[in-house]
Every structure is written in structure tokens, then in C-alpha cells.
């Protein structure tokens, strides 16, 4: 079972707030297959980011469990979470969140350096990855010397450089114009096909969502619809 499902979410609930209680996630059950390219949609405040942060073990749930590759992340120590985030997960946010003091290549190398890869090797791998996202000629540029779309490509290279089994993107094209959004989407789709990694993307863009394998619709912290797209 855990062979087909890379992510298994059971009764996941996240309650925010002291005093006024906000049920950002309310008993979510969801299984995601290895290599799936999945979209999470829903109105603002429906809990999309909250769900993604849970899968990315950036936050802890109020109740329920999340199994990544069969391991319950809610029972992990702080250190194990760090290692899991580094080895198994890749993050792309709406804002690129690149380290401003480092150039594109160094930013893309960072997850490798963190996992203890030698810097010469990290340089090779990160540079290949930057070529793959189409930024082979901008490696020495710092984030403030690159456009929004270019920075987002660096962020994608960084998310994928450690070859994670799961890539999560919270509105990765939310900050870009239609044209760059489309090319970023195409890039993610290509990487998904080539590397067989699982992609979970939160998006407001229905056209983009329509091109994924499956759409999860969240409303008030619950799954309102779970539909497979015909390829």
C-alpha cells in the first residue's frame, strides 16, 4: 500500500488561534501516488497553504497523521524533520525566497551543501540543474539582478537539486504574468515527467489546474472535490 502512495494523510486537523478558533484543516483524508502531478485549488482561506505546510513538515498538525513514504512525520524529532525536509522535500513558494546574498548557482547549491555534499560536486549538480531550468547563462547573478520569472526558475532548480521525492509549490506562478506562468508550468510538468517526482501545487489558475493529473478542491478546510483529469 505504502508502495503506491507516497503520501497518506489521515484525519488531518489544524486549528489556529487562541480564543477564536479557526479550523484551517478539518479532518482531511488524502492519498497521493508516487509521481503524481496534483493541483490543490479552493477559495482564499480554505486551507490550501496550511495543508501544504503540513505535507512539507514546516508545521505540526493539531491531530491526525501524515505518512511520507510510510513514515509518520508527526512523530519525528526536530532533527529528523530537518533531514526529511532536506532529502525528501523540495519547496517552491509564491515569492522565490532566494538568499539575497548568494548568486543563482550558490542558491541552487545550498540544499546540497546542507546535506553535506562537497562543494565541487554541489557546484556541478547545481549548474546542471540551472541549465535544465534554462538559466545556464545567469549563474553568477544575484536575485536582485534577475527578473521575477528568472528568480522563480532558480527557486525551482533549488527545490529539485537534491532530487527530492516530493516537490510542493504554493502558488509558484502566483506572482508572474501569464506568459512566464505558462513556461514555468511547462517546466514543472517536464521535470515531473523526466524525474518521476511527485508534484503538489497550490494554484488559483484554473487553466493550469486543468492540465494536472488530479485536482483537489478545498473548502473551509475540507476536501470538497477530488477529480482526476483525463489526459
Amino acid at each position: 500500500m505504502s508502495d503506491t502512495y507516497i503520501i497518506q494523510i489521515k484525519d488531518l486537523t489544524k486549528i489556529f488561534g487562541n480564543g477564536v478558533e479557526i479550523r484551517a484543516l478539518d479532518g482531511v483524508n488524502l492519498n497521493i501516488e508516487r509521481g503524481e502531478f496534483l493541483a490543490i485549488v479552493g477559495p482564499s482561506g480554505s486551507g490550501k497553504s496550511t495543508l501544504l505546510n503540513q505535507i512539507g513538515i514546516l508545521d505540526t498538525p493539531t491531530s491526525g497523521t501524515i505518512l511520507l513514504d510510510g513514515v509518520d512525520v508527526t512523530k519525528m524529532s526536530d532533527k529528523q524533520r530537518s533531514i526529511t525536509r532536506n532529502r525528501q522535500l523540495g519547496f517552491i513558494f509564491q515569492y522565490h525566497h532566494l538568499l539575497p546574498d548568494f548568486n543563482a548557482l550558490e542558491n541552487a547549491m545550498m540544499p546540497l551543501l546542507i546535506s553535506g555534499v562537497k562543494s565541487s560536486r554541489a557546484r556541478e549538480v547545481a549548474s546542471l540543474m540551472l541549465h535544465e531550468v534554462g538559466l545556464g547563462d545567469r549563474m553568477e547573478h544575484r536575485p536582485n539582478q534577475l527578473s521575477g520569472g528568472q528568480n522563480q526558475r532558480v527557486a525551482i532548480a533549488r527545490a529539485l537539486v537534491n532530487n527530492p521525492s516530493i516537490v510542493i509549490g504554493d502558488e509558484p506562478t502566483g506572482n508572474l504574468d501569464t506568459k512566464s506562468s505558462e513556461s514555468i508550468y511547462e517546466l514543472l510538468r517536464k521535470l515531473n515527467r523526466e524525474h518521476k517526482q511527485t508534484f503538489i501545487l497550490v494554484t488559483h489558475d484554473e487553466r493550469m489546474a486543468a492540465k494536472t493529473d488530479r485536482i483537489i478542491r478545498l473548502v473551509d478546510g475540507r476536501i470538497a472535490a477530488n477529480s482526476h483529469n483525463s489526459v
Partner: protein
Amino acid sequence: MYELFIAIRHLTSRRRQTLFSILAVGLAVTGLMWSQAVMVGFTDEMYSKTVDRMAHVTVEPKEGEDYIHLYRKLTEEITRIDGVVGVSPVIAGAATFRFKDKNKNVVMQGINVEAQDSVLFINEDIVEGSFRDLEITPNSVVVGDALAEKLGVKIEDTIDASFPEANPAALKVVGIYNSGTPLDETIAITSLPTAQDFLDVSNVVTTILVRGDDRERAQAISEEIDAMGYPASGWKETNPEILQTLKVEGTSNYISMALIVIIASFGIVSTLFMAVMEKTKEIGMLMAMGVPRRSIMMIFVLESGILGLLGAVFGVILGAALAMQMGTYEYGTEVMAGITSIPFVVRIQDAVIIVLFTFLLNLIGGIYPASQASKLKPVEAIGRE
């Protein structure tokens, strides 16, 4: 060591703050290094004007006895102790000196000139005549310049010495000395036999003075002499006020200078706090990439430590250069114990200690902002714009 890579990049990116922090700590350390050079110089000068001119160890008669009887044997035994470079048996007693119509009570010291010179370098103090004449001319005396003035005597004059129960004698002045201390008014020096005859005693002495090759060896030497059955005391026991003076000067100096360095280091810590606040999102992203809390902490502690280290090295070099450039500080007048100028003494060990102290201080100071950074929650740090 990606932590070091990130820390160094943070520092080089905010170059202006980095230079300012290094400069602030550096200047404080310059002051510390410089004043340490003054302090060491003062200490050295103080020692050379006091301890280096006195007997390191003083040996007294056995309990209940007035004299050291077998002093020749004891002197030989003391000479054989490791580190002893000079041993001088001395007999001292009171005397009244009279010259023409002037009287003065003095302490008469009978010495062996060569031996006394090996302990107290008396020959350096002679201003007229010579100590050596004491052993050539029977019944001769060398007096301090102040005493000579009080009595109105000159070389070749003859002083009448007397005291109850002593054998009156006529002593010919063969030398005048000036040691620069108040003792010049009270001590009159003769040969051993002259003093023994005057005091009407056999071949005995009242004290034995000892010099070691190192003033710090006094304790060890005096313990060995104690073990021979004669009470001996080192200069630290006989002149506790010297150490006291140095300790007071040294401590207040250290405290004020260390405070300046601590204040300068506060600058680094507050810069670090600002950096942590500025970099909240970055820290969140680093955590998302799998940087554990320990490493987040290490990044910022390293930043603080590097600033402290660079500031310290810069300050030590500048402080040492200034001190060496100036050489000595001239007071113009005597400030204490015959000290008129202070040499700046730059010692490697002081530089090393100051650098370590500043480095550690900044490492420790960095811990608080660094731990604030490491306690951030990844989701909250990354934020939701």
C-alpha cells in the same frame, strides 16, 4: 561547513556594518592592549626599582636566639641551593654617631663587601670613595649621603660611634653612598669585624641576605632555608605593600578596560539582532531546506565570533604598534618608589589572552540573538505576504 560559508557571506554583504563593528571592537581592544603594555611596563619598573634592589630572602636567627652563630656553614649551604646567586651575612646593631657637635642614632651594618654586592649591588650606589676600603682600612665606615649631610661629615672625617654596652670606636669615613631610599639617613655600613667589635660579640651575624636568579623563586628558596632550621622569609612577606600596590593598580586597570571591550561587543550583538530580524524569511527558507536549529544558531554565533576575532586582532596589532612606537612614557618627576618613566612592554602572551578574551566574549554575546534565530518557526518565519 556551509554554516561558515553563509556566515562569512552575510558579513561581506553588509560590509559597512561589518567594518564598523570590527572598528568599534578594534579600538576598544587597542586601548586594552596599550594599557596592558603600560601596566606591564609599570610592574616591571616597580619591580626593578624595589624588589630587584632588595634581598629576595632574609634569614633570621633560630627561635629564641639573638644571633646566627655558625653563619659560615649556613652561608655555604644556602649558596648550594638551586637558583641562589648571592648570599650575604650581615650583623646589625644600633649606634649613636657623633661628629663635632652633631649626634645621630643610626643602624650599623657589618658586611662582607663582595657578598653584600652580590645581593644588593651596593657598589652601584657609591657616590664618593669606595666600599672596598672598608676591608682595607680598619675601623672605617661608609655612610648614606643624607646621613653625611645631617652630621656634616666628608670623606676622611672620623666619626665617634658609641652605644650603651657597646665598645666605643672612632670610625673613618671612606665612602658615601646614595641608594635613593630613606635608608640613606639611617644606615651606616662597616666591615663585619668592625661591627662585631663595636657590638662586642664574637664572630656571629644577625641576618643572612639572599638573592635568587629570579624574584619569583624567593618562596622556594626560603622554604629550603626554613627546612635547615633557620626562619627565612621571602620579599613578598617582608614587603607585602609592593604586591598590594601592583594588585590594586592592575585590577582597576583591567576592569575599566574590559568594560570598554564589553561595551564595544554589545555593538556587535545589537547589529546581530538587527540582522536576525532582517533575515527572518531567509532563516525560514533555510529551515525549509533542512538546516537544523543548531546550524541556524551556529551561523549567527560564527558571525559574532568572526567580528570579535577580527576586531581583536586588529586592535591588538594597533595597540602594540602604538605602544612600541611610543617606547616609554616620561613623567618628568618621580611618581612613586623612584619611578620617573614607564616603558611600554608588549608581550605576546598579553596579545593572545586579549584576542581569546574578546573572541570568547563575542561568541558568548552572539548566543542570545543566534538562539532567537534558531527558535523561529519555519512557517511563521517564511510568512504569508
